[in-house]
């Protein structure tokens, strides 16, 4: 019994990675930026901030002005709504799409990659065939067809993004599983009587989990950008479903010639830090988990 209460604690790869992340100032800063966006989006989703984004608060298309409160700092849109509040709501939409589409694509990618890599043979052939097929259809075309099949809207877009974006992760996971399944520790587990499921999920999976985490972070950036692009193309968020950076940019397409620049500027300025922060953070994660860099 006295051993169980032992104070000797190991430092796992995770705590090592965390220590390395904390040593990296850029990573910490990027993470804080992400947290700030998440907090803002969270508050917006609970209607605690930017609640009046649908209300007209002044003359149509007023230019940004410092007087008149924070809601006027980024000007007003064609209906006299605050661009500032719309941008905040847009952050919520972006993160929502990022999260939901990742939650769809990552389990598919991990499972497909794990099964293909671990079992090989016809299972591998089948799964490789599926994802090669998917990755060979131009993504926009696939998204358009899913959007038409399921009807437009934010949920469809999340599903469409989720269903098309697991391929890259599945490939990585498959390669890692092929590498790990021949390692001696897996043979050792087999010799101890561990079943296939146990070897896949309990033994190999924790050894590739860092790839999943990196993949998750990477997916987020792609999803946020895809949301904007798709919405701009009229395949994403519908007018009336909520505010989105994509919609704001789409609106700006007609307004720019009239010299109304603040809608576009607000959306892109809001997008830039979160995309950059996610990209930098993903890089830092990769470095932190890379065993080759371990000292």
């Amino acid at each position, binding site marked *: *019994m*006295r*051993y*169980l209460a*032992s104070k*000797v*604690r*190991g*430092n*796992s*790869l995770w705590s090592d990675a965390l220590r390395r992340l904390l040593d990296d100032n850029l990573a910490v800063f990027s993470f804080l930026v992400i947290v700030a966006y998440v907090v803002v989006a969270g508050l917006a989703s609970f209607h605690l901030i930017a609640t009046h984004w649908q209300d007209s608060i002044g003359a149509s298309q007023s230019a940004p002005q410092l007087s008149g409160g924070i809601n006027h700092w980024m000007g007003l849109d064609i209906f006299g709504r605050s661009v500032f509040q719309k941008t905040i709501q847009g952050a919520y939409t972006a993160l929502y799409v990022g999260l939901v589409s990742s939650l769809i694509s990552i389990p598919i990618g991990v499972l497909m990659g794990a099964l293909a890599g671990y079992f090989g043979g016809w299972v591998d052939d089948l799964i490789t065939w599926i994802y090669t097929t998917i990755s060979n259809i131009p993504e926009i075309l696939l998204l358009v067809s899913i959007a038409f099949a399921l009807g437009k809207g934010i949920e469809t877009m999340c599903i469409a993004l989720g269903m098309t974006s697991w391929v890259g992760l599945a490939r990585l996971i498959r390669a890692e599983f092929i590498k790990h399944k021949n*390692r*001696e*520790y897996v*043979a*050792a*587990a*087999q*010799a*101890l*009587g*561990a*079943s296939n499921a*146990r070897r896949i999920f*309990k*033994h190999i999976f*924790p*050894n590739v*989990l860092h790839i999943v985490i990196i993949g998750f972070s990477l997916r987020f950036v792609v999803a946020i950008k895809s949301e904007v692009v798709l919405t701009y193309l009229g395949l994403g968020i519908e007018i009336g479903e909520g505010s989105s950076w994509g919609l704001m940019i789409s609106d700006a397409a007609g307004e720019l010639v009239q010299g109304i620049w603040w809608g576009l500027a607000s959306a892109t300025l809001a997008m830039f830090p979160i995309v950059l922060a996610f990209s930098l953070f993903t890089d830092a994660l990769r470095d932190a988990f890379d065993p080759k860099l371990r*000292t």
Partner: protein
Amino acid sequence: MAENDILLSIKDLCVDFSTKEGVVHALKNVSFDIPRGKTIGLVGESGSGKSVTSLATMGLIPNPPGQVTNGQILFKGKDLLTYSESEMRKIRGNHISMIFQEPMTSLNPVFTVGYQIAEVLRLHQGLNHKEARERTLDLLNQVGIPSPHQKIDDYPHELSGGQKQRIMIAMAIGCEPDLLICDEPTTALDVTIQKQVLDLMLDLQTKYDMSMLFITHDLGVIADIADDVVVMYRGEIVEKNKTEEIFIRPQHPYTKGLLACRPPLVKHPKRLVTVSDFMDESGAEKTPPKVVYTDPVRSISETDNPILLDVKGLKKYFPIRGGVFGRVKNQFKAVDDVSFQVRKGRTLGLVGESGCGKTTLGRTVLRLIEPTAGEIIWKGNDIVGLGADDMRKLRRDMQIIFQDPYASLNPRMTIGAAITEPMEIHNIGANKKERLEKAAELLQRCGLPGNVLNRYPHEFSGGQRQRVCIARALAVDPEFIICDESVSALDVSIQAQILNLLLDLQDELNLTYIFISHDLAVVKFISDEVLVMNNGKIVEMADAQTIYTHPKEDYTKRLLSAIPKGIPKTLLDKGIEVLDFSQ
């Protein structure tokens, strides 16, 4: 000795490495001389600083984190440490050459071997393409590569391990260096190849009148090569002397331990002495226990030692596919019609060179690889046809300990989780608490403190990890364990400890082993019966004593004659066959 007879003189060399945990003193005031035309053996185990010494001589210490903080390296009277990088480049490969341990990774796979040798010659000697090629052919001849005209245009993967090491040697002696540094050049090679390569190096040394610095962890290898031996331990030189003196009258307890812990071929000690018998953690000398020699052949009784495992006509073929449609063109016969029996409480040694099929045989017996044909009869029942579930249940009785303790533990699992997992699978112990208590007990039995259950594998040394692997194998109370090269990756002093542990466990728990190894001395020490394998077939099978004293087959004789005796020839001629410092 006159001053100009010394080719290289290392004086008070100190090297530090700065790590996150602080500064590590890799070398502490290391001083020794290498005379012209002589061979110095530099002996030590992993972490002793022997490789750092050679890298410092070549000016190859990575900086940062490494830093030479003190000392001189005088080569022909000039201090190499004061040389600039471009001056050092002219020394390296030209005046001082180096051969590394791994011939597989030291050659660039995308260039032909001829090109790689010629490149050195063109670089340092200014030869043109034609001259360089002629000289390369000459060199290939000298290092004993068969049909050099053909091999000169081969790529590294087309050559065997021994041939690759010969290529490395050709490259190293190409510029006729004054000093050749060999860093464990034969450790990765089979014994028969090792002997050939060592003989070749001795020949070349006399021919070119080179000095050699021969780095190894194995005192046995340098017994017949080195003129002087320098023993290193934890960054310091603990002893240097003439080779013969080192072997007869070692002064430092570490040297004594190192010499005594190799299993002797002539006598059969009950347990091996280890370095820790000669000195404690702080380095203070201890009086070792008297070595007890026993009869190598243990008696067998039908009641106590029934036949546990009976393998009949076992075959494992791997298909060789080729052509557009991947048709099976041929079979690679990894295990070809092998039959043997193992008795309860006894050890069967399985010995052979790399690629002989011994590892495949071990794994096929456990059905980690499915056999192509044959019977594996365990306690009277053939297990070849068993279903997956029945086989999983049976795994409780049959365990395996792998070669590489770094690879066979899951890096993401704590030691506690690793040891309790098999208990969980086989429903041993009522709950987690009971299992962890048993795990702690097992760790203690295997010589580790029980309070490390929450630690991860990377926090342990190689020997400690192998103890963890043994504890894990014991967690299911097996009757039978296959040790697949289980001590080959360990330092010699750790090897002795693990071998003793395996023997203790066999006595206590009445375990049955199949012990697979390429190291004949180790197999002889631990086994009752020995099976010699070559090309997937059994060459010879006899009890451990007979096979060493009266080998019947040519292959066995060749294998035996290639084992380094571990004692200089001059001493053997005087009739000294066993090094025993326990009296």
